[in-house]
């Protein structure tokens, strides 16, 4: 007799029958009926009509029946809130039951009923259960707080449950500790600025003790929580590492990976010459290898993480190349990941083995895999210089197989090899040319055309070859067309006599018959270049190209650092920062690796956590390529490709939230912007700094850009003045921002509708939004901008006054102000002096109000006016200020308090700028 009987239906109508059975007098029949209802529910049938009948069965001593009814309630309470209230009494009663199992069950179920009316009744029983004598009940109640927070966050805060939850971290039972940590972590995810998990050495010690005794799941929660902690110095770091290391031998792979995360992060603080550092490195390899013998799904996640680890610390796995060799029956997603890691680990020592493997893979059945294997051979050639020759000969062997997609893929990678090692392997061109006819993919055709154009002087029939492509010019994809245009121009510059006709033909095809603006523009540029100054044309078109290197496919270092802090999470699987894609987490903390510090210096700083992180200056890698690199590449690469690193992050709906765990202290550097002042700001309106030149004409091929920022009617605007100081017309303007501290991004396109003629000036106002991708900049208000026109892409950086981020509803209630002021720790307070300001307090207050700095209260003590002010930033950060003005004294004193003290400096600059203008 099995449960499948519950699925059989009768003709009369199932619901009708069940109703009758639920109201039966016999207990046994009732239970059977509820089981049938549950069975229907599991397959997605709607049985909500039976709600009153099922709830009637709730008052029972039979635990199984009770559980079943609870199951039903959780599913349907939401749709029948009024009926659900009937159940409350039973819940409250059950919370007092002598049996802990029933108490826990009741509090657990109540938390799952997402009905507002019920949650009110939940508070009292929950408070009791949080302090229950039985740890089983306490641990269940801890999770219940997280549930309740999800339904009604305000209620949880008002009732003080968060503090009770924090107390549970010191509970005597490890399971309770683990669940409290889990609940707090979940709540903290939606509360980026709250110091819920305020870790200090004492609480860390408690967590480490609980770590040894709690369940595997609890260990994961605790380890993930530990990873957010920044140790004070290397000694503490080492002692935590020592206590976490045993977790590497756990059977649960999630525990292992979370432990790896903690170790990878804390290792950063250990001095490299320490013996322990080497020991730790050695200990990390075996567990990572073991993960690869698990089920394929686990392997996949492990491989994505190993990919990050080998980029950060290649030494860990450098001897383990063989475990990444692909097995014939690995799922394709595992194969592709293994291939990627093989290339990352390839070195002179193991390249022979790797190549032999890759060659094998290139003859397998799966097309995607074969393609990637061929590409991998090319990447090896670029990465390991000594192996380039072998790689090329392997690729030639593969071309000989004449398997269509293998040949095409091989040609694409050979092009890259030519660019890395010019004038070395051109002898193979003849072989490549034999396969010209079989190429049908745009990428391969474009690569082949590039090769022919680049080496036109060594290919006797280059003109014929290119001509043959030209016949079907309009059917080709843009990529091929552009490449063909460039290749023919190159050919012409190398062999002008025979190819005049050909170049005419391609230029007219590109400029007259094509609808593609890119193609047309490029055609015109060449045409004009060739007709005005062939020597210059030669210099531009045949300029030496920068060499490519293997770094192109490495993850950008700041992103890598952040991802290392997120090992084991979805972010690590997608290799994107969590802010880029995780929905529902309104505030995402940007994590960074701690910096190395000596044990001595760390303790001197008052705010140890932050100070340790920030004391070493970190070399910020420049994302934007320098001007010089771009020039050589201009005509051979598509512009979008150049812009890619800048725009790659896209305009996802990433919430603009100030990173809460900013580590580096904000340096000065704002000064220069304001020192240039002296212009007239509007007396009562928002302060607008005078325009400054951001991009001088000589750096941008004749385009001069100056501008400023303003906040008008709640909209942030970037006011630009574009001046054309070149001889030719400029068109096709576009603008793009790099990720920045407050998520500034253009809210619309740059409106330059008419072409900008020589010596013309145009003023444009660009509305900005604050929902762009966020990345902490140094200085905080730095903004990197790319402007594109028909000539090139130009990059500059500028600094905006933070006052434009002050929002209109920044006036705080007095009570709230008071409470907040007290609540923010004194460490976060900073004091500044404003000198030589001759305003009285009234005038100052009015002036500041124009820039959305609101005076909330004023107090006069012994002839000294104290003004209390509040400011709210566009990302929700509040800054509270106390301004002391003494009559007759031109020097003001200002104290700023903020949960993100990094902004204080910027805010102070604003005060100064506003008051003095």
């Amino acid at each position: 007799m099995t449960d499948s009987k519950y699925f059989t239906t009768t003709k009369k109508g199932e619901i009708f029958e069940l109703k009758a059975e639920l109201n039966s007098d016999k207990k046994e029949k009732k239970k059977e009926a509820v089981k049938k209802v549950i069975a229907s529910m599991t397959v997605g049938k709607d049985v909500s009509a039976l709600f009153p009948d099922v709830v009637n069965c709730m008052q029972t001593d039979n635990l199984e029946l009770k559980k079943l009814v609870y199951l039903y309630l959780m599913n349907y309470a939401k749709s029948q809130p009024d009926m659900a209230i009937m159940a409350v009494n039973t819940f409250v009663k059950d919370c007092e039951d002598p049996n802990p199992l029933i108490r826990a069950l009741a509090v657990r179920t109540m938390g799952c009923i997402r009905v507002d009316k019920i949650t009110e009744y939940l508070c009292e029983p929950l408070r009791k259960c949080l302090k229950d004598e039985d740890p089983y009940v306490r641990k269940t109640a801890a999770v219940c707080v997280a549930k309740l927070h999800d339904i009604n966050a305000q209620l949880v805060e008002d009732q003080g449950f968060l503090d009770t939850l924090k107390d549970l971290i010191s509970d005597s039972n490890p399971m309770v500790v683990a669940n409290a940590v889990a609940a707090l972590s979940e709540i903290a995810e939606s509360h980026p600025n709250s110091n819920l998990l305020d870790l200090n050495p004492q609480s860390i010690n408690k967590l480490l003790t609980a770590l040894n005794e709690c369940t595997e799941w609890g260990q994961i929660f605790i380890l993930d929580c530990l990873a957010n902690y920044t140790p004070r110095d290397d000694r503490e770091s080492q002692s935590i590492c020592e206590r976490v290391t045993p977790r590497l031998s756990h059977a649960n792979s999630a525990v292992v990976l979370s432990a790896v995360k903690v170790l990878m992060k804390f290792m950063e603080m250990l001095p490299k010459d320490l013996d322990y550092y080497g020991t730790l490195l050695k200990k990390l390899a075996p567990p990572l290898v073991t993960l690869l013998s698990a089920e394929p799904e686990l392997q996949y996640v492990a491989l994505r993480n190993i990919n990050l680890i080998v980029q950060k610390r290649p030494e860990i796995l450098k001897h383990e190349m063989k475990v990444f060799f692909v097995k014939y029956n690995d799922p394709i997603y595992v194969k592709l990941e293994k291939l990627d890691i093989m290339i990352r680990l390839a070195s002179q020592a193991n390249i022979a083995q790797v190549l032999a493997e890759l060659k094998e893979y290139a003859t397998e059945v799966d097309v995607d895999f074969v393609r990637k294997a061929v590409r991998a051979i090319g990447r090896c050639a670029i990465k390991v210089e000594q192996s380039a020759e072998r790689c090329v000969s392997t690729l030639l062997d593969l071309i000989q197989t004449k398997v269509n997609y293998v040949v095409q893929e091989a040609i694409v990678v050979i092009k890259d090899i030519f660019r890395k090692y010019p004038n070395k392997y051109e002898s193979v061109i003849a072989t490549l040319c034999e396969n010209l006819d079989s190429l049908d993919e745009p990428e391969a055709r474009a690569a082949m055309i590039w090769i022919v154009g680049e080496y036109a002087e060594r290919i006797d029939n280059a003109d014929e070859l290119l001509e043959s492509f030209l016949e079907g010019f309009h059917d080709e994809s843009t990529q091929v067309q552009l490449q063909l245009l460039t290749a023919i121009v190159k050919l012409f510059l190398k062999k002008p006599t025979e190819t005049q006709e050909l170049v005419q033909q391609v230029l007219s095809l590109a400029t007259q018959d094509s609808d593609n603006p890119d193609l047309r523009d490029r055609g015109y540029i060449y045409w004009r270049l060739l007709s005005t100054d062939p020597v210059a044309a030669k210099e531009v078109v045949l300029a030496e190209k920068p060499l490519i290197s293997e770094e192109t496919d490495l993850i950008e270092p700041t992103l890598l650092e952040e991802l290392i802090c997120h090992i084991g999470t979805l972010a690590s699987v997608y290799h994107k920062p969590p802010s880029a894609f995780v929905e529902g987490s309104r505030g995402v903390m940007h994590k960074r690796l701690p910096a190395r510090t000596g044990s001595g210096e760390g303790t001197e700083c008052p705010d140890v956590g932050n100070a340790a992180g920030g004391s070493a200056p970190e070399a910020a890698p420049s994302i934007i390529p320098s001007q010089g690199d771009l020039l050589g590449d201009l005509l051979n690469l598509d512009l979008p490709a150049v812009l890619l690193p800048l725009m790659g992050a896209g305009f996802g709906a990433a919430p603009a939230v100030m990173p809460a765990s900013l580590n580096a202290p904000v340096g000065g550097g704002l000064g220069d912007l304001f020192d240039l002042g002296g212009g007239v700001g509007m007396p009562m309106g928002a302060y607008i700094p005078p325009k400054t030149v951001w991009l001088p004409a000589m750096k941008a091929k004749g385009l001069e850009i100056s501008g400023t920022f303003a906040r008008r009617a709640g909209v942030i605007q970037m006011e630009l003045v574009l001046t054309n100081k070149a001889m030719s017309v400029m068109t096709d303007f576009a603008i793009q921002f790099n990720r920045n501290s407050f998520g500034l991004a253009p809210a619309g396109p740059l409106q330059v509708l008419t072409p900008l003629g020589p010596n013309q000036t145009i003023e444009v106002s660009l509305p900005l939004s604050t929902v762009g991708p966020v990345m902490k900049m140094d200085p905080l208000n730095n903004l990197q901008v790319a402007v594109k026109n028909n000539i090139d892409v130009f990059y500059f950086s500028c600094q905006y006054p933070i006052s434009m981020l002050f929002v209109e509803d920044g006036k705080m209630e007095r009570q709230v102000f008071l409470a907040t002021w007290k609540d923010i720790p004194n460490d976060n307070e900073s004091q500044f002096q404003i000198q030589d300001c001759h305003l009285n307090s009234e005038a100052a207050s009015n002036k500041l109000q124009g820039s959305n700095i609101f005076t909330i209260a004023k107090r006069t003590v012994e002839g000294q006016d104290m003004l209390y002010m509040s400011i709210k930033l566009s990302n929700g950060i509040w800054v509270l200020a106390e301004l002391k003005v003494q009559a007759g004294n031109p020097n003001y004193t200002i104290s700023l308090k903020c949960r993100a003290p990094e902004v204080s400096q910027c805010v102070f600059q604003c005060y100064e700028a506003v008051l003095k203008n």
Partner: protein
Amino acid sequence: MIHSLFLVNSSGDIFLEKHWKSVVSRSVCDYFFEAQERASEPENVPPVIPTPHHYLISVLRHRIYFVAVIQSEVPPLFVIEFLHRVVDTFQDYFGVCTEAAIKDNVVVVYELLEEMLDNGFPLATESNILKELIKPPTILRTVVNTITGSTNVGEQLPTGQLSVVPWRRTGVKYTNNEAYFDVVEEIDAIIDKSGSTITAEIQGVIDACVKLTGMPDLTLSFMNPRLLDDVSFHPCVRFKRWEAERILSFIPPDGNFRLLSYHVSCQNLVAIPVYVKHNITFREGSSQGRFELTLGPKQTMGKGLEAVLISSQLPRGVLNTNLNPSQGTYNFDPVTKLLSWDVGKINPQKLPSLKGSMSLQAGASKPDENPTINIQFKIQQSALSGLKVNRLDMYGEKYKPFKGIKYMTKAGKFQTKGLLRGRAWDLKN
């Protein structure tokens, strides 16, 4: 945390859903089905699939997809490990984990899932705790329940739930006290066409079946513990003791469990127990090909090779085969092109071979793919790595238990790379 769970069968029907937070519409699985369609094989469905509002993390076991829906940042391994635990629990409860078994026990399944996860947080995943909360269905109990009206839900808080040894329940009693340990090693290897080893590694496990009364405290020591430098332990093993003395000391769970798994890598020189010689040739311009395959024992430490099974995916161009096995039976499926040969035992005096011809599609070009040969085998009473248990002692209880250790070696992913001769570019050289 884990939001919902959907179970999908091989024909793409959702046959069970469970939500731990608010209800997520089952239409979210459409993204999964899309990925499933794109995948060439069922096992190629990617384990993590993003959708606009959720993430789907899935595992495929026993031809059922277990699809977990999550909404916020959760470690994917955490979810995958949990799903594995669900599968293991079902198997433990119902003997098999099939769609039929799950449907037959749908209410128990539902009760179990509710007990295993609370608001997406794992609650009770240890088999012995679950069994105290929800009794596994047995025919006897079903009958008794029907007659007496009692339930299969435990009314008492499981004792293990909060104790320091959550994996063991108290009050265990047996008349025959026994402890059996199986050392099982699987060898994964890739051998190249010339017969030399490209990679070889051993995945070993020690599975235990312990039925001992009371709270026994066991220690297990090895003759050569140095072999074990890469190990994963059951939570019951005292790690400190292992670090210091290389002795496994533990209070065992009751019943079957995996005490440890270990990994012996290629650096520690794994002996290869079997060799394969094979030759597959196609001649240019002919629709016939030759196939020859011989295999024999290599380093087996005097133990015989058993249950040998050869399989290979032949190139797509092969229409049919006409082969003669010297022993065992062979089978070629012309649709999937899968050749399998059940060899059985290998007699070192008379090596088994499989020879004959293959017919190719007329006029087709030479096949390009390299067939890989998969080999399965077993070696009884021997652990390939040489791992040996020294002694097993019991403390804490008075009685004398029966003890037993068994060794076995199996092939895991054991492959020999093939070589096709007569390809265009080989001929040229």
